[in-house]
């Protein structure tokens, strides 16, 4: 156990400088973005006004100083004062309020993609070059080729407008848990917290509102997961231990699920972790289509309204999430498979 803990610690330590570099890269976006003092002061500002404002807010300090401040503010998850809104709120308030919605959407989409991808990929590997294989592969590829925003629009047209099977997604406490008392659902993770509270009504409503956007978003990683599953499963099914198992007379389903699939899981999980990036990016579009109150839409709107600090902090939150998810993936499979603890990487 201590070996495992040591490994986790080592990986976490590696993540820290990576996060620092990521924060540097995010912060380097600043000069590309519109000047927040313009958004704050409006069209009446003179050059002197802007200069005075920038000086006071420290926007003209040396780059390293500003970056240092950003790192410090990011560490507290406050990200400093929101100088565009200028109502005493911090950038972090807005980010933290919206992150849970994006997280739960992305998580649900990833789960759907992994389950569907595993099934389709395994089918393809067990029956290679047969109809099921072709159908599964083409289906996944088509999913990856259809623009999510279009798919989202068509899906809500069909399921919410025409058939009225599902509601238009409305991810708010008022809708998901109308009976919540003060202080309930303070985490803002509406689905996870309703599960934890065993509030079945809220879980049902949360799932209904989550279904459309999560399904649409899941098409992004689906193709990759399917392909990866199929390829590794094919490889595993060709290995000696599988032949041995078969020779011993183990039933085929058992061979596939207990042996081959289990061994194929590691590369699949790795790929899944790496797909988080594409998934979070796709969330920007999906959130916009479904008016989802998530971080992606928040950042996209901040880009449009010229709120640079929110953009930088939001992009950093996304990138940091990606780094942390992949760290967790690394750690998870090392814990699951002790063989990987030694040796390179």
């Amino acid at each position, binding site marked *: 156990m201590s070996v495992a803990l040591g490994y986790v610690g080592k990986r976490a330590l590696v993540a820290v400088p990576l996060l620092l570099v990521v924060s540097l890269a995010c912060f380097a976006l600043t000069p590309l973005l519109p000047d927040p003092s313009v*958004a704050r*002061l*409006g*069209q*009446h*500002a*003179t050059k002197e*006004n802007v200069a*005075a*404002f920038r000086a006071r807010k420290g926007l003209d300090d040396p780059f390293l100083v500003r970056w240092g401040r950003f790192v410090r503010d990011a560490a507290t998850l406050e990200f400093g004062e929101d100088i565009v*809104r*200028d*109502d*005493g*709120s911090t950038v972090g308030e807005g980010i933290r*309020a*919206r992150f849970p919605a994006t997280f739960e959407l992305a998580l649900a989409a990833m789960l759907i993609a992994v389950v569907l991808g595993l099934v389709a990929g395994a089918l393809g590997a067990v029956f290679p070059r047969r109809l099921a294989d072709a159908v599964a592969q083409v289906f996944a590829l088509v999913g990856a080729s259809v623009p999510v925003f279009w798919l989202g629009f068509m899906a*809500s047209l069909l399921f*919410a*407008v025409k058939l*009225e099977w599902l*509601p*238009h997604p*409305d991810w*708010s*406490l*008022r*809708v998901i848990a*109308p*009976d*919540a*008392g*003060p202080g*309930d659902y303070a985490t803002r993770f509406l689905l996870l917290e309703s599960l934890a509270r065993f509030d079945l009504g809220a879980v049902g409503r949360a799932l209904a509102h989550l279904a459309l956007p999560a399904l649409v978003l899941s098409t992004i990683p689906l193709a990759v997961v399917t392909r990866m599953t199929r390829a590794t499963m094919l490889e595993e099914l060709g290995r000696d231990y599988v032949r041995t198992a078969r020779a011993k007379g183990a039933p085929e389903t058992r061979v596939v699920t207990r042996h081959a699939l289990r061994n194929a899981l590691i590369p699949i999980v790795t790929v899944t972790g790496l797909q988080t990036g594409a998934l979070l990016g796709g969330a920007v579009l999906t959130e*916009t289509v*479904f*008016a989802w*109150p998530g971080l992606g*839409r928040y950042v996209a*709107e901040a880009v*449009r*309204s*010229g709120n640079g600090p929110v953009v930088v902090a939001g992009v950093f939150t996304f990138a940091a999430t990606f780094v942390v998810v992949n760290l967790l993936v690394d750690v998870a499979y090392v814990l699951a498979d002790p063989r990987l603890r030694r040796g390179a990487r």
Partner: protein
Amino acid sequence: MTSITRRALALVALGLASLPAACGKGDPAGKGGGASGAGGATTFVYARGKESPTLDPAEATDGESALVLVNVYDTLVRFKYGSSAVEPALAVAWEAAADRLSMTFTLRDGVRFHDGSPLDAAAVAVNFERQRDLKHKFHFTEPGMPPERYPYWGDMFGFVARTTAVDVRTVRFEFSEPMPPFFLSLLAMFTNSIVSPKALEQGAAYVKRHPVGTGAFVWGGRENEEITLTANPSWWGGKPAIDRLVFVVVPELKNAYARLESGQVDGVDNLASKDVPRAKANPKVKVHEVATGLSVCYLAMNNDRKPFDDVRVRQAVALAVDKPRLAAIAYEGLATPIATLVPPGVEGHAGLPDRARDVKEARRLLEEAKAVGTKVTLRYMGNPRPYAPDPGAIAAQLRDDLRDAGLEVELRKDEWASHLQALQNGDHELGILGWTPDVPDPDNYLYVLLDKEGAVPPANNVSFYRSEKFHALVAAARRSYDAGERRRLYADAQKVAFDDAPMVPLVAMPRVAATSAAVEGFVLDPVSSPRFAWTSKPAKAK
């Protein structure tokens, strides 16, 4: 507005005075939860396109902020529900001095702010003084930083010299020049909401985020972009029928309307023109329109720039634009084409016959001005506005209309803020813009949008039209208290502008909103943002 000295009618006070009886029951204000748990409590969900940037009435200028402010705050006088006439609110009576250099208001008795403090003359005076006096401790702008002046006060209240509390119930305004005839309408604007001095004490950030007024609804809180208000059980006008009023943000009109159809929201603040026919055909939905459209949309030509410094080119543009077609297609028949900026229905509108579209004549004028084939850029905004629900479609139509006459028009789209900034700085040749008046008076269209005094960047007169003749007429009308004379002066001014064609007034747009059919007592105000004090909705059966 002929008579300026008015006494409040006992009649109006009658309906509003019978209040304290109603406030015994109902759940205590301020609790966010328990809508369905509380039994009969009703929640009304109203969808809008954006969140409110600020809740400090002194600095707010936009409709999204106003929507919250008009429900939380009261003003001294208010627009009668569903009309642009003025009636008593926090003030029950008023009288102007004969020289029009001062005006005295008598306040309503027994009104309390949501924080429990009493409304008195001192509280009212503070709210005006803090806007006027740059050094006032509640003047929350930064010295030397724009906007140093609160925008509305700076633009419209320069004539107010001082506001004082004469006694506990009496407030007096003193003016540096005779007050304009529409002063009462100005007082009814949301920007003159009366904020609790106790809240002001808490500082700028607090006022921006926590409105504390005397109004029909009490601030309940904000969760992301969702704002909750709760009924004020002790409102002097009587407890509203809605217990909880929720403003949600649905960025796209089509999404908002789809949620109304599926019953997920009770009302939508704006309706895409193309959804209107469908909404009218749906028995579950009620469409609300204001009969007279006050918002106008126009095509601004930069008179400082070639080729639009030539009146013939401007006239050619005016001749080439097909307004009826624009109104029919880009506005789905909801808007009315207008010949002059003052729309029909506003006192002072000049019934000028409009130019009929004449491409041949337009081309001839362009040839005369040697402007055929000139390349010009038409700038438009990326976000829908009340007067331009679909700016892209309007721009596309105008471009094609002008191409027929021989101008090579290129389109350029910008986000709203940068679009406005570009036009106000004169960084355009052609631009689409519009105006929703603060008060329905010709002055608020003509002086603001076409007078030479407004042609200095950042300009409201984005056509940069500088006609002395026009200026003389509008300035004279500003000083006149004779209704007939004013009408005449404004008619002449409109004729001058029509012939000079500094811009092409396109259409007047009525406000359109929709609620579910079960909602009662929802009326769109022509000037004010929607107020929900008199709206009710049956409690859900399940």
